[in-house]
């Protein structure tokens, strides 16, 4: 049954309003948690929630996108699309985690970073880039879990981690399917085609070697049994953190470097490109 789901079906499941969100994970997994607010620069962005909590007796930093379940909450959460302030709050707390040797858990669930005049004016590109640069060097273990939508740089800004996991029906893409269709074909109504062509499912990413493991969902999706799904996610995260915590910091950083360094699909030829040479024959 499950294999009959198309990429577009999975997009729909990943966006289901009843799908467990970051705060549901916090509620189910943490026996203690404080949400920390603000980037100390400009604002507190409710599209990202972050704070320190305890899971299975271990203190952790949790950073996650947060979508709403109704219009009012979605306005507040900006549909889970962070502004630079949200990413800078995350950045502040990444540094905080490093300082207090807390492992970091990132829960990814965003259609993408907020595209607005306001966000551009405050440096959306810079905010994302800075997070990627700092996560690359952070001297504490990081784990990310795509629990819903992994949309573009908006996801990656809290997604450069030692391990990357995905829920079975979650997606991860270079741009949301609608945006991909708009960019490629100037027609956002072709989102279903984009979803299929661009290979955005958890299974696709696992095949490409980008995602380390996939956690299965109950038939029909995580929203049909949130409690169990969240616990399974929690188990994988905590096992993984245990394993990562045993690795010496420099080794951890070297492994993180290698993890991303090898991603790419290219060929190496005997001849160099130059001027207007003869076009290459493609495999």
């Amino acid at each position: 049954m499950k294999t009959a789901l198309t990429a577009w079906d999975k997009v729909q499941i990943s966006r289901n309003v009843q799908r467990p969100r970051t705060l549901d994970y916090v509620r189910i997994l943490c026996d203690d948690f404080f949400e920390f607010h603000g980037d100390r620069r400009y604002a507190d962005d409710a599209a990202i929630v972050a704070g320190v909590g305890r899971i299975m007796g271990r203190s952790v930093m949790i950073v996650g996108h947060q979508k709403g379940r109704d219009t009012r909450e979605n306005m507040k959460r900006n549909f889970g699309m962070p502004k630079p302030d949200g990413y800078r709050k995350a950045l502040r707390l990444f540094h905080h985690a490093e300082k207090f040797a807390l492992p970091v858990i990132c829960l990814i669930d965003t259609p993408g970073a907020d595209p607005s005049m306001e966000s551009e004016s405050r440096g959306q590109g810079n905010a994302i880039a800075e997070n990627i640069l700092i996560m690359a060097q952070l001297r504490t273990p990081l784990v990310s879990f795509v629990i819903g939508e992994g949309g573009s740089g908006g996801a990656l800004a809290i997604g450069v981690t030692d391990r990357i996991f995905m829920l079975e029906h979650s997606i991860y893409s270079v741009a949301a399917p609608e945006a991909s269709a708009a960019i490629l074909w100037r027609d956002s109504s072709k989102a279903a085609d984009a979803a299929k062509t661009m290979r955005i499912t958890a299974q696709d990413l696992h095949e490409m070697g980008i995602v380390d493991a996939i956690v299965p969902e109950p038939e029909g999706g995580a929203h049909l049994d949130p409690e169990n799904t969240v616990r399974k996610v929690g188990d994988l995260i905590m096992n993984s953190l245990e394993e990562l915590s045993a690795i010496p910091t420099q080794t951890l950083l070297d492994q993180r470097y290698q993890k991303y360094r090898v991603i790419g699909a290219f060929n190496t030829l005997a001849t160099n490109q130059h001027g207007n040479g003869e076009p290459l024959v493609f495999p």
Partner: protein
Amino acid sequence: MKELFRRAPKAFTPGEQTPDQQTPDNMWVKCPSCGELTYVKQLRDNLKVCRCGYHMRLSAVEWTGLFDSDSFVEHDGNITPLDPLNFVSPKDNYAQKLRESQHNTGLYDAMIGGEASLMGQPLQVTITEFEFIGGSMGSVFGEKIARAAERAYELRVPLLTINASGGARMHEGVISLMQLPKVNLALARLGSIGMPHIAVMTDPCYGGVLASYASVADVIIAEPGARIGFAGRRVIEQTIRQKLPANFQSAEFLLEHGMIDMIVPRNEMRLTLARLLRLYTTRDTSAAPIAADV
């Protein structure tokens, strides 16, 4: 500094393109900004900057003229793109698109990388080619910057990136997205030994390029009028359902909002970069002044 400025050449000559790519010498080029016609040779002599100040886009090959004569040596010129998603759609075929772009530009992908010297100072460089699928950032692009940054790290020299890109290469999907951390990891390593990354943003710099290495360079220089942003203008206008001000996402707008260090016109780029490089790489105060280009 004044004297140095006078002594140094004011400009660089854009590198030659291969004959079949070159515009015939008897052609006039219309400025997209002011509409005035300029004789091609004169335009090239003026670094493709119109009398009105509009900076026309340069090809990657043309940019190599920025460096000391014959100092640019290409590296990784043999890396070629693949079609990892087997991207075929009713309206789009990646393999075919690659072939067309390769034919039109003579490049395998949207990026050239290598080593060069600028007024005698060695550095590693990468230059994007916008004419190749909008200078988009895919596997080859990411690999070439990562390798340039790694060479810079090994050789302890600065890295210069010259950028014009529409963003991530959609046709390589999430593999393109993962080039962002790949590049930034290599840059973080370069930064750890105190070697600078200087980014030159030319028109346009959007999306993945901005959200990874370009906007976190140690020094960010933009050309006048370059459009720079994370989300494209069209996307933002659709989201907010109103027209954006004309100067929105211009280099001048970004300078005003604190996002870049300076705006440098093309004819001052060479000297600006040389002076900057000296500030970061010369620890010896008795070092010789920047040699005039020959």
